């Protein structure tokens, strides 16, 4: 009997170890990489101890009673007819209540602690679209150095400086994404979640929720939409890249610059196709924007620095930016690789796609 209990405890420990120690699980909540996720994990672990105790008492009790009092053949025994025991009842009403009350103390204080928005935080507005994420850097020192000096805008990858507290404002309709008929098309509920950095908050149309977090070490942290938002909910991913101070400054400086026009003839041809300056094409700019050009669409990702090393994935972080085959497939027919994707199939020829790809890869 005792061995069984130790076995159960051992199994539980092994499970917890499996969960917390595996390094190649990029969305592991038990492997936090910032203070917000750490706080949330600590609270769970705190509750797991009394939960494990109750588990052992109740399951062990059921098992013990089942074995000890099981009916044995040939022994016709009528048990004592116990109807109840008031003191016991009061005991097992009050004892769990006390345990729960104790658990709720750190819970409530943490709720309020996580809701605090420090004044010195960096501000990023998160925009949920179907099915990708946009990030707008709204602090005054984060405006681009051209055009109307709009805030820096990225898609799929949010870049942050290590150790700096970030205050995210979550909005479902950020850049005014509208279909051609002017009806908001993308406005559904999402939920923003990077498990190793912070627990999720929903992105609710008409409301603005906040997440406050920071990353302890440089690196890439995965996340994805956690609230069902239609067909491609499962493939609405993003990454957060935390850079050390020098890399961060370099990133900001580059983001502030417009795209440079390519010199390579194929890429030049792609640019003309993209912007419609060569007499053909031009559909791209209805939705996409590229800094320093006529492309100012707001319904789809900003591609100004599409090929920068920090922009490592595209189309809801479904594909690695360096994966040329994926980009070609996407441009050939977005719906074939991601059913329901809002980007239409423009019937581009493979030559046109090669030109567009050359242009996109020139946008460092």
């Amino acid at each position, binding site marked *: 009997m005792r061995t069984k209990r130790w076995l159960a405890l051992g199994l539980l420990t092994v499970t917890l170890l499996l969960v917390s120690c595996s390094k190649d699980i990029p969305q592991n909540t038990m492997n936090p990489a910032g203070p917000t996720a750490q706080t949330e994990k600590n609270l769970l672990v705190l509750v797991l101890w009394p939960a494990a105790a109750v588990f052992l008492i109740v399951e062990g009790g059921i098992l013990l009673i089942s074995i000890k009092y099981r009916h044995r053949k040939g022994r016709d025994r009528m048990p004592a007819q116990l109807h109840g025991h008031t003191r016991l009842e009061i005991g097992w009403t009050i004892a769990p209540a006390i345990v729960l009350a104790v658990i709720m103390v750190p819970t409530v204080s943490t709720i309020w602690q996580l809701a605090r928005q420090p004044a010195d935080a960096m501000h990023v507005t998160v925009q949920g679209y179907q099915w990708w994420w946009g990030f707008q850097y709204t602090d005054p020192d984060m405006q681009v150095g051209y055009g109307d000096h709009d805030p820096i805008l990225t898609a799929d990858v949010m870049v942050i400086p290590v150790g700096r507290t970030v205050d995210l404002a979550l909005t479902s309709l950020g850049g005014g994404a509208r279909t051609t008929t002017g009806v908001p098309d993308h406005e559904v509920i999402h939920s923003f*979640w990077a498990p190793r950095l912070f627990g999720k908050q929903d992105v609710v149309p008409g409301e603005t929720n906040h997440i406050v977090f920071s990353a302890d070490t440089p690196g890439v942290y995965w996340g994805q939409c956690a609230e069902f938002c239609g067909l491609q909910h499962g493939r609405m991913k993003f990454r957060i890249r935390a850079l050390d101070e020098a890399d961060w400054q370099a990133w900001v400086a580059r983001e502030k610059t417009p795209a440079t026009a390519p010199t390579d003839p194929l890429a030049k041809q792609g640019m003309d196709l993209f912007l419609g300056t060569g007499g053909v094409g031009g559909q791209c700019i209805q939705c996409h924007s590229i800094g320093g050009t006529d492309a100012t669409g707001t319904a789809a990702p900003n591609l100004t620095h599409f090929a920068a090393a920090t922009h490592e994935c595209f189309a809801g972080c479904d594909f690695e930016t360096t994966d040329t085959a994926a980009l070609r497939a996407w441009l050939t027919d977005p719906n074939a690789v991601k059913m329901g994707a809002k980007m239409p199939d423009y019937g581009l020829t493979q030559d046109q796609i090669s030109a567009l790809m050359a242009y996109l890869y020139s946008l460092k």
Partner: protein
Amino acid sequence: MSTAASVPAPRGIIRRPSATTGWLSWFTTIDHKKIGLLYGMSAFVFFIIGGSEALLIRAQLAKPDNTLLNADQYNQIFTMHGLTMIFLFVMPMSAAFFNYLIPLMIGARDVAFPRLNAFSYWVFLFGGLFLYSSWFLGGAPNGGWFGYPPNSTTDPSIGMTFYALGLIITGIASSAGAINLAVTVVNMRAPGMTLFRMPVFVWMGLVVQFLLAFSLPIVTVALFEMLFDRRWQTHFFDPTAGGKPLLWQNLFWLFAHPEVYILILPAFGIISEILPVFSRKPLFGYQFVVFSGIAIGFIGFGVWAHHMFAVGLGPTANTAFGITTAIIAVPTGIKIFNWMGTMYGGDLHFDTPMLMAVGAVAMFVIGGLSGVTHAVVPSDYQQTDTYYVVAHFHYVLFGGAVFGLFGGMYYWWPKIFARQLSERLGKVQFWIMLVGFNLTFGPMHILGLEGMIRREYTYPAALGLTFWNQVSSVGAYLIALSTLVFIVNAVKTQRKPKGLANEDPWDARTLEWTTSCPPPVYNFEEIPVVHSLDEFWHRKYVEDKEGRLVRVPAGASDHAAADGHGAGHAIHLPSPSFWPLVASIGLPMIAYGVLYSWWLVGAGALIAIVGFMGWAMEPSVAD
């Protein structure tokens, strides 16, 4: 005593059917036992369908980047799996037990409103068929059973309109049934059957009916608003026109959290009947079990926003609902401890009903503990909308409710069919189901903590989630195997000749076992007079001088059931009726009309009105 003279002469336009046997009688029956069987069989068919959908889900998730199902198919299947298991399996299966057993347990001849009972069943069935017809009419609901707008209201496929209409229809069925059963329990108890002599199963039934009666109107309002948003472009949930998406969430969960208790309390009732019988001891702390059930019913209305901790209600609301969620663990714990107290010191007979009941308690505890971690709000920010939650509620609703319902089937099968399910196959089923269940849903705790979100139709290999998903998929097919064992058991059993060597095979405690197996149409020759809790037990046993129980010699009890009367003639029972069926056909027709044509709405309304008129006008008995 009553003579023909005291019964008013039957009046009516159309003659009432009178046959109570033959296949046609199933369409006109108003006998609570037959309706209970109809509920049970329909619910079981939906269980097989919903289970098949679960198998498709697990097949799709068995490997990363799987293309077995595409996003569209997957979203429809997981939505229909949830809707089916909740509204078309667990709820009607519970209704089956309530219908069949409550009148027998309280010593009544039928429910208070027998025709309304038939109406409830047919409306439920047509509501379910209506929902499933969407597969053939442009696509099933695809926005999840929770149907959050604006996604659900702006989705271009027709599925979520079927969702709104279908749930309104099944809601009508549940509301009518709830009123009916509540009135039955309050008004139809046998002499001496005071409230605190009622079996706990009847108590839990009463609580469930009140939960239904008070929670269904809330979701009905929300469903009509969704229907109006989708069909007639109103803006209840449209943020671009001043509507509030969160309005839906509040209304929905204010229904859907009590709904969780609507799903689990019937199983709690069944467990509370089975444990004493197979422990040969009375239920430990009867009043505490009853009052904790009532407390769960009340507090269940005050915890809905724990489904919404991440929607940004603010720290005040999150604190309040975190605390209420922790509080509801207390009455639930009381039940668990009392069940353990019932088993303690007993003479435990591990027949299949007992295995299922103990299994249900053991599995429910795990779901209850993971539920407590949801009350820890900041930790829930991580777990909500992940597979951790999927694991949690399957431990509660499969581990608790489905194990409990199977236990009830094994326990009452002899009562209902006068045949006993094979114990050997029953035990085989139990152990396969227990192992399969834990393999399926245990790893989901880990998957959730490792960052696997709910409702995603596929996941990349890079997330490192493949292994536990494979384990879970294997488990799901073991559950399917255990269900197959049950079906084989049921078919083999029903092929055997009818008749039990012992009409009280479990040495049971409650009134339903005082009548024959299966009970006659009028249930009891004479309405029993009740003197105590566990009436039947006390007719069989008395305590001797040392406080030990000894069996009462046959015929020696001062309140043993009198026999020797004729076979129940002169017992007045209402006759069958086909009007409930007619009236209920009108409802799905109206719903199709809302989708396709106003003419159909008119025709459906006409049929419903004709049905209700016929119902009102028909004679009280067939002549």
